[in-house]
């Protein structure tokens, strides 16, 4: 069942055409990635979804309703963790719930049972600056998840991490996702990450972005923490070629 449906999205910022007739959909419990060259307008799609940019042309429906009626269908995780340095970890985690008007005590009670699963036990009273990059990213992810929204929008969530931490976080995330099955919309420019985590991948062209390819990844999970199979290699090679043909001058 389609939960999120983007139809004929076009976007022009100033004199620059950013998006050109984008069509995408995400089913409930599905993991869908948007893969594209840097600066292609991947993040602009998320900005349309969160309302940071006004919808110019096309339509967005969530659970069959237009975006305006469903403005809070999404939980957004930015590339940098955007943790508030003056708030302790627990207070960063409850931020979304506080904004929804839930009392601090209730919000904490809601978050605390999840803290151990995200490897943050014993760190809830720390400030973000006291945590490693991986822990900060897990904090940002949990802050996204606890909002209880229909779709999780992850904008290059592991992009700012060093290579080793990124690999660890991807494996950890895959395990978490397999048990929870959050409906997830991921923006990335990392081909391997897209293949490892996604059910489906949309490939965007250079600006103005169009969907130039849609690939279903049916490799059984877990895919990380073991040598990549031939099928994964084949998809990665195919994606890389599509992307390189785009960026090659």
């Amino acid at each position, binding site marked *: 069942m389609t939960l999120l449906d983007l139809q004929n999205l076009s976007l022009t910022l100033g004199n620059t055409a950013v998006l050109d007739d984008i069509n995408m959909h995400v089913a409930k419990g599905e993991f869908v990635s948007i893969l594209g060259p840097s600066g292609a307008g991947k993040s602009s799609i998320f900005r349309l979804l*969160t*309302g940071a940019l006004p919808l110019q042309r096309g339509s967005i429906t969530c659970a069959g309703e237009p975006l305006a009626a469903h403005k809070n269908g999404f*939980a*957004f995780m930015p590339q940098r963790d*955007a943790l*508030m340095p003056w708030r302790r970890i627990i207070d960063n985690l409850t931020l979304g719930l506080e904004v929804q008007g839930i009392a601090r005590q209730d919000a904490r009670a809601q978050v605390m049972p999840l803290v151990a699963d995200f490897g943050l036990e014993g760190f809830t009273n720390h*400030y973000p*600056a*006291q945590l490693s990059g991986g822990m900060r990213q897990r904090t940002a992810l949990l802050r996204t998840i606890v909002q209880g929204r229909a779709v999780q929008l992850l904008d290059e969530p592991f992009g700012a991490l060093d290579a080793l931490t990124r690999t660890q976080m991807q494996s950890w995330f895959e395990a978490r996702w397999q048990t929870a099955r959050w409906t997830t919309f991921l923006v990335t420019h990392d081909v391997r990450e897209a293949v490892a985590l996604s059910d489906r991948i949309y490939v965007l062209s250079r600006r103005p972005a169009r969907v130039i390819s849609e690939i279903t990844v049916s490799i059984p999970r877990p895919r990380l923490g073991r040598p990549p199979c031939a099928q994964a290699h084949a998809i990665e090679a195919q994606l890389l070629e599509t992307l390189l043909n785009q960026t090659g001058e």
Partner: protein
Amino acid sequence: MQYLVPRRPGRGLARGIPAVLSVVSAFLIWEIYVRVSGISPLMLPAPSRVLDQIVQNRALLWDNTVPTLKATFAGFALSLTVAFGLSVVLDFMPRVRRALFPIFVVSQTLPLVAIAPLVVLWFGFDLTPKVLIVALVTFFPMLVALVDGYESTDPEIEDLIQSMGASRVQVFRAARFPSAMPYFFAGLRISITYAVVAAIFAEYVGARAGLGIVILNAKNSFRPDLVLAAVVISSLLTLVLFAATALLQRFVLRWRDVEGHR
């Protein structure tokens, strides 16, 4: 993994040693110079004589410190309230900010020497003119600090909280206001050092009592030792207020200490 390194209280004291040494040696040189040169105490009294004057005139000094402190606190409270209130209005109404900001800048270009007598002329010899002058002098650094501080909010944090469906008021309370706190304390520390001096200047221009009056009378009766005694008291007041803001800052911005000790 980084852990919090607890602050050792001894380190703060050790860091203060060079400052204490330089101040003490400055006074020592002054004292030695006065004794060796045999300069008249009517020209330049030695630190020991100033100290002696403080002890001898402690009742007079205390009686005149109280009104100065009152004016300082009342003026500062007024300026803090106005600066904060205005900063919120300006943050929510950028158009008003563009319209009003030049007026605030102009208020800072007025020479105090000319304005203070006028304020006394308009409001009399009581507390009011002193409160107004202290407020006039101290409010601008705090207002600018707050307005700039709100603007310094990390756009990613603002985007994030907006994506959560936050209202403008929620964005202000949860993101913009806390972001401004480091800036605010920078402004507060500048303001607080002006506050006592502004109060004394206002008294100097016209008042019934206060450290400014002590200084005025001592000057008129050729008593530089008593002038300096009052100056020492006023410096001490400023230092105490400065230390109090530093302590408050340490408490409010404790998350930054943590960061600094990574």
